[in-house]
């Protein structure tokens, strides 16, 4: 069965690029969210296999969104990969490494994104 991936990024362009890159390389069902709140709504409703979550977002950032996802029994088992433009170790962001699969540092290449996801998740 085809995987479902939710991409969360407040930057429209970044969202479009990641979506298009995965579209070209996979047959996954791709969902989009432009904010943390939207991400919570969509994931509660659709329960995707993976959430690609941007760290730097206004209002509710990646860290807060992650905490909310993990607090909800419906979404707490969904795999999460963080995306960040900041080169800082995870420990400095205050995120519990146990709660995320890995961190992708931007700029990543959209065409290799699918392979990287397959590698870390063993898909």
């Amino acid at each position, binding site marked *: 069965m085809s995987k479902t991936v939710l991409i969360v990024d407040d930057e429209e*362009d970044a969202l479009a*690029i990641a979506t298009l*890159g995965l579209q070209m390389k996979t047959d996954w069902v791709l969902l989009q969210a432009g904010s943390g709140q939207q991400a919570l709504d969509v994931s509660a409703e659709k329960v995707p296999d993976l959430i690609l979550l941007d760290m730097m977002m206004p209002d509710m950032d990646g860290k807060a969104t992650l905490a909310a996802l993990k607090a909800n029994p419906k979404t707490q088992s969904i795999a999460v990969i963080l995306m960040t*433009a900041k*080169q800082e170790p995870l420990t400095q962001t205050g995120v519990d490494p146990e709660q995320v699969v890995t961190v992708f540092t931007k*700029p990543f290449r959209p065409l290799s994104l699918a392979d990287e996801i397959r590698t870390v998740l063993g898909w």
Partner: protein
Amino acid sequence: MPDPSSSSFSLMSASAPSPQTVQKKAVRADILVIDDTPENLHLLSTLLNERNYKVRSVTKGVTGIRGAIAAPPDLILLDINMPEMNGYEVCEQLKANESTCDIPVIFISALGDVLDKVRAFNVGGVDFITKPFQIEEVLARIRTHLTLRRLQLEQQAQNLRLQQEISDRRRAEETFEKSFLASPSPIAITTLRDYRFLAVNPSFMRLTGYAKAAILDRTTADLKLWPEPALYQSAISQLAQGTRCESQELECRTQKGEYRTVLISLERITLHGESCVLNIINDITERKRIENEFISVVSHELRTPMHSMVGALDLLSTGELGELSEQGAQILSVATTNAERLIRLVNDILDLERLKSGETRLNRTHCNIEDLFAQTVDAMRAMADEADVTLHVQAVSVPVFVDCDRILQTLTNLLSNAIKFSLPGGTILLTAALEPDDILHIRVIDQGRGIPPDRLESIFERFQQVDASDARKKGGTGLGLAICRKILKQHNGSIWAESAVGEGSTFHVRLPVE
């Protein structure tokens, strides 16, 4: 009524100077004689005139006082026994007047007089002579008191000069002291010999966090004030060459172990015969922090659009969004190459800033240098093949406790540089040897074009390639060696280059194994 004093003056001027005194150039002291007996006056006048003293004689105390006030003599001979006003009273009045009070008064008494010696001294007399005069005694007493008076005057003049000097100095000292104490710039005076602190101002104590007692008489080495003493040493050596040292950037370690970035200006001064260094410091830590923060924010803000840009170019290049002409594909590849270079540049700037600000701590793990060499060569093999350069490795198996990713980054960087500047067919040698004190000495030896001697040090600074066009031609960022040096510094190691132009370069890395 004729003024007796004027008559005495005429008397004085009438008396011709004796031949022997003419030869003496300096006119001797001015003596006022007050005596109601004309014979005495005449006798003393003649006597003193012969010795070339200037003599004024008066017969009345009142006239004497007036004359003394009008033109203070150097000495007064005063008869005690006079009608109207006796010698004691005259003396009291003389002593009461500001302009005559310091003139020595010698009393004259007749043999039969009852001389009240105590009173004579009490009213201010310095001595007395008795009639009939023993000429030599009179002269000796006069000489003595004139000498005393002269010495006294000299002493007073000297005291005045000293007081003036002291007040000048005190004023200069106050000016210096106030500027030194109030100076917003930290100032310290150290000996040139061993950099021992002789004086520090409050700003300096604020900067370093030390109390005065904890600094004075200690050396900079005692306090470990300069984490890199060699840099301070090189600033000092500029002084030795006669040039002053201005605004040398240094790290300064405070009492709490914090590091402050300072600009230091040095001037050589001599204090109490000892060569000293005047250190004037400017704390630029905050300025540097703002600069670093700015770089960090700008770099971060650059990455977001770059991310979208390079992604968009990637997607275009698949051809899945529409077939591109051959030229179109070529142009797209130009855009991708440059976008990638921009990303490398921003990444390197960020990396360097993070290393510089000490934000990145070493993530030490146990690994073996042999494995690190193997990984480096694996990573660089493709680039070497493309450049037709052969890689030789002489590895030794040495376990190390270092930040393996950072050392790998360093080795990759050095190898990448070596490949870039090698000619096709060239060979690059990567060696490691364990030296005393557990120092691993790594060498990257190439046969490339070499580095001019005057650039061997500057290439480790930001954007200081040997040739300014290198970055563009070779695809580097101009930050690689600066990053390497920071990484080695964090490992308490060092990195430097040796080179012979046209024959190749050797990059040396000294890395403590833990």
